[in-house]
Structure formats: C-alpha cells, structure tokens
C-alpha cells in the first residue's frame, strides 16, 4: 500500500523504480541531492537499493567465477598464435610481411620515401633490362681467320734447293738497287727535316745585288716560303763558280722539299752538275769546297752517274754519301758549310742579302 501511495504521489525529480535500478546497476550514476534526501527519509527505498545492488553484485560474482581464464588457456593461445604470435611459415607469410610494411610506412615518412624510391626503381628495372638485353642495332662483325697451313720443316735428309750461281750477280744488283732507293729516300727525309727545322736566313725584304746574292735570296725564299719563282727567273749562273754551286744547292733544296718539282728539275740539275768541274790544283779557288759539297750532296740524293763518279773520283754511291756527310756534317746548311761559304765569299762585295746569310747563320 505504501508503494502505491509513493507511486501516485511521485513528483518530478523523485526516485522511481527505474532510477533505483539505475543507481544499483550503473556505477557512473550518482544520486542527486534531492534523491539522497529521499533515500535518507524513506528507508524502504534505501533497502530496495541495497537489495538490488546486492543482487547485481551476486550475479557479477557468478559471472566472474564462471569466467575463470585458466579454463580458456588453450583458446587464448590459439588466438595469440593466430594474431600477435603468428610467425612467417617456411614459405613465408606474405600477408604478415605486408601488414608489417604498411604499419612501418604509416609510422615514418622516411620509410614511405624509401618505399616509394624502391617501387620507382623496381618499375624502372624492366626498362633498363630491355635496354641492356635488347639485340644490338648493328650486325655482328664476323672476323674470319684463314686456316693456317703448316709447312713441315725440311727433314735432315731432304735435299734443299740451291741457288743457281748464275743468278747471284743479278740478285746482288737487285739488292743493291733496293738498298740505294732506301738510302736515297732516307737521305731526302733527313734533309727535309733539317731544312724545315732550321730554315734559311730571312732575306724577304732585302734588296739583292749581284749574282751570288740573287741566288742566295732565291734559296732563302724557296726554303722559307716554298716559292721558287726567283730561282726560276735567274739568268745564267755559270759566270761564277760560287753562284753555280749555290744554284745547285738551291735546286737540291727544291728537290728535297717539293716532290712535285723533283721530276722537272732532273734535267736542270743534270745540266748544272755537268757544268761543275773540279778546279785544277794549279788554279786553287775558294769555292772549290762548296762545289764539291754540292756535287756530293746531289749524288747522295740519287743524282748519280758514272761520269760524275769518275770526274769527282768517287768509287760508289756509298762513298758519295760518306763524303757528303763528311763535307756537310750531314746537313745541307751545316756550320761547316757556312764556314766554307764565309771563306768563299770574302772577295765579294757585301750586300744586305750576303750580310744576312753571313750574320744570321742558323745553328
């Protein structure tokens, strides 16, 4: 009867059944001040609350007793071995690895950058492999080596073909010719190097006076500039032995330096050489050493003839070469040649070209 009375007289904010249950069950629920006063005044309500709390506590206790974790150890272990304690199998658990990679990527920006870089490189790998492994654009070069024919060495008892004695002189002559050609080419090469290396005194802007100076100027121009027009314009030089010797030297210079002019100068050289004659000992001349040096140089450079050998008392071409080197110290414009030239030109009037040749002696 009393509860019915309370129910009918219940006012706003006062305890009702649901609120009492809430206070008994929900641990976060706290009675208000008014509810506390009501509980203090109405002991039966307080008793109900206590009974309810006791009932709920007993049920929680029953559940707790029933929830003995020891009974479910196997189940817990099964769950753990399927989750946190799962280990990659022998063949590898790709899912676990993927999960780990994704986790690390989420945690670090550097890991994300590294992963992006790795993916980029892996993506580029097929392209690089294609470039490396593709067929070359050019066809393969085929090198062919002819089969080596092994000739058996003659046996000790095998008869070796002997050279016919009649052929020996011909072979010697042929060998001599080959040797001469080689030596002449060698001499020309050496002289060409020497002329290019040292050159001749510069007389380009100097006026020449007299036959010797004109020959010297023509020689300077030819050696230094390659222009031999002054040499071609010279008149007869036979009036002066010194001029004639210098003229032969200039022609030889041209033959050494200009292969194309060599053929055209053959005749002029031969004619000039024929004009040069040994000076009798009764008529000594200061130009004699220069004349002889010019002739020997010509012979060494291949302008050889039997007449010249007899005339200049040279036994062979080889002797001419040795003599030439002895006369000229191996160079067309050697110190020795200049010394002889200075001696030979003492009687001449000193012009600008001659001075240039005598003063600007290249060493």
């Amino acid at each position: 009867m009393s509860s019915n009375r309370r129910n009918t007289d219940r006012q706003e904010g006062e305890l009702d059944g649901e609120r009492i249950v809430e206070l008994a069950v929900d641990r976060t629920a706290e009675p208000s001040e008014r509810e506390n006063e009501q509980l203090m005044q109405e002991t039966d309500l307080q008793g109900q609350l206590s009974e309810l709390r006791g009932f709920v506590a007993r049920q929680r206790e029953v559940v707790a007793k029933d929830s003995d974790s020891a009974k479910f150890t196997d189940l817990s272990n099964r769950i753990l071995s399927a989750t946190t304690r799962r280990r990659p199998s022998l063949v590898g658990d790709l899912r676990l690895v993927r999960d780990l990679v994704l986790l690390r990527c989420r945690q670090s920006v550097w890991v994300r950058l590294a992963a992006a870089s790795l993916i980029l490189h892996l993506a580029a790998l097929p392209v690089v492999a294609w470039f490396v492994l593709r067929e070359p654009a050019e066809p393969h070069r085929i090198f062919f080596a002819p089969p080596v024919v092994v000739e058996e060495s003659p046996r000790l008892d095998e008869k070796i073909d002997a050279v016919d004695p009649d052929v020996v002189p011909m072979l010697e002559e042929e060998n001599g010719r080959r040797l001469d050609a080689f030596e002449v080419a060698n001499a020309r090469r050496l002289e060409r190097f020497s002329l290019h290396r040292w050159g001749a005194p510069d007389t380009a802007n100097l006026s020449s006076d007299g036959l010797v100076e004109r020959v010297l100027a023509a020689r300077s121009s030819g050696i230094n500039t390659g222009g031999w027009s002054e040499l071609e314009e010279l008149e007869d030089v036979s009036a002066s032995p010194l001029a004639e010797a210098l003229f032969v030297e200039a022609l030889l210079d041209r033959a050494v330096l200009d292969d194309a002019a060599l053929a055209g100068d053959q005749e002029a050289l031969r004619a000039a050489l024929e004009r040069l004659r040994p000076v009798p000992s009764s008529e000594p001349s200061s130009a004699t050493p220069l004349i002889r040096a010019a002739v020997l140089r010509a012979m060494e450079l291949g302008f050889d003839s039997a007449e010249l050998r007899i005339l200049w008392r040279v036994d062979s071409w080889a002797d001419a070469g040795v003599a030439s080197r002895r006369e000229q110290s191996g160079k067309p414009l050697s110190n020795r040649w200049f010394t002889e030239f200075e001696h030979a030109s003492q009687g001449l009037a000193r012009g600008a070209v001659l001075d240039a040749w005598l003063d600007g002696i290249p060493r």
Partner: protein
Amino acid sequence: MRELWDRERDPLASLAKGDSGLFERFVVGETSTFVGFFRRLGADPEEAEDLTQDLFLKLYSQADHYVPRERFAPYAFRIARNAWIDRARRQSTRGKTISGTAGTGEEKEPLDILERTASAEPDAAHATAAREESDRLYAAMASLSTMHRAVFELGALQELSYSEVSELLDVPVGTVKSRMFYALRRLRELLGDGTEAAVGESLDGTVPSARSTEA
C-alpha cells in the same frame, strides 16, 4: 570485463603503435569474458569459443585502421554483439532459431534447469554451487527477450554505463532504463532472490505505466 580497458589502456591503439603486449594481455584476460558473453546470449560452448576467436581475430585485423573514439570496452562489445547478430542471421537463413528467445518453446529447457537446480540436494548444490549458479543465471537470462538480455548483460554484468549501452544498442537511454528495470525484475523472480515479494511489490509499484508498454 576482468580489467579496466579504457582510452589509457587501449589494446588496439597500443597494437597500432607496434606494441602487442597489451593486446596479448587483453586476449589472455578477457577470453573467458567473451566466451561467457556469447554463452549468456544463447550460444553453446563450442560456438561461444568460435565466436570469441573470430572476435579477437577481427579486432586484431582492425588495428591498422583503428581510431579510438570511445572507451575500448564498449567498442569491443560492439564488435562482439555485431558478431552475434551476424551469427543469428546466418542461422536464420539455415532455418534455425536462436535458442532462448523469449516466447518460444525453446525456453522450456532453461527453465527446466532452474527447476532442477532449485530442487537439488543441499550437499550436492554446495559442491557444485558455482557451476549451478552460473547455469541458473544462464537459464534465467535465456528466458529474457534478446533485447532485455543484451541490456542486462552489457549494463549489469559487463558494467558499461547506461549511455554506453544506449550507444552500443542504438536505443535511447530511457529505453535502456526500462529494459534494465524489467530484466532485473524478471531475473530476480526466476533466480529466487529471497526478496521476490519485496521486488514484486516495490518495483512494480514504482514503474510508470507509460513505460511498461515500451518494454
């Protein structure tokens, strides 16, 4: 729950940071909690263990995407309840019914348990007191409707607050209050608390008539 699992002790947040220790402790400590949870909802023992295992696997798989928005305990029970609902749907498609549904013939068996345990010899009852008590509780809860059972399980036994139960079950707090009221009254009647008359008299008398239709 045997331990307090709140935001400061959040197993999934800890797992997402690479520390699996708290999650392992949660598994070891609360496996029995969830087995009991599913048992009281109506699952048989084997099924309750399967559901519990699936629950932990699901929680573990969600660690990568987990964002803590509430206490962990309500979150875990939300996942557990969804698992239970999924299980119920699966069974309904197979033509089965969930045991213990109020108003069906299946509740006879749990009530039989109540009668048997109530008439058992005192010595035997004492020897197996714990087991019997839990069986009686299960049987009594099985007689509740699914909605009342869930409210009592989460609010009374798992000690979630009314607001947490309200959010979890997606019902108003007032509904939680009324369902808890009726669940508690029914359980006290069934479990023979010794205060049956007082409960029946006092709580019946304080319930607003408008709310009785809702429950």
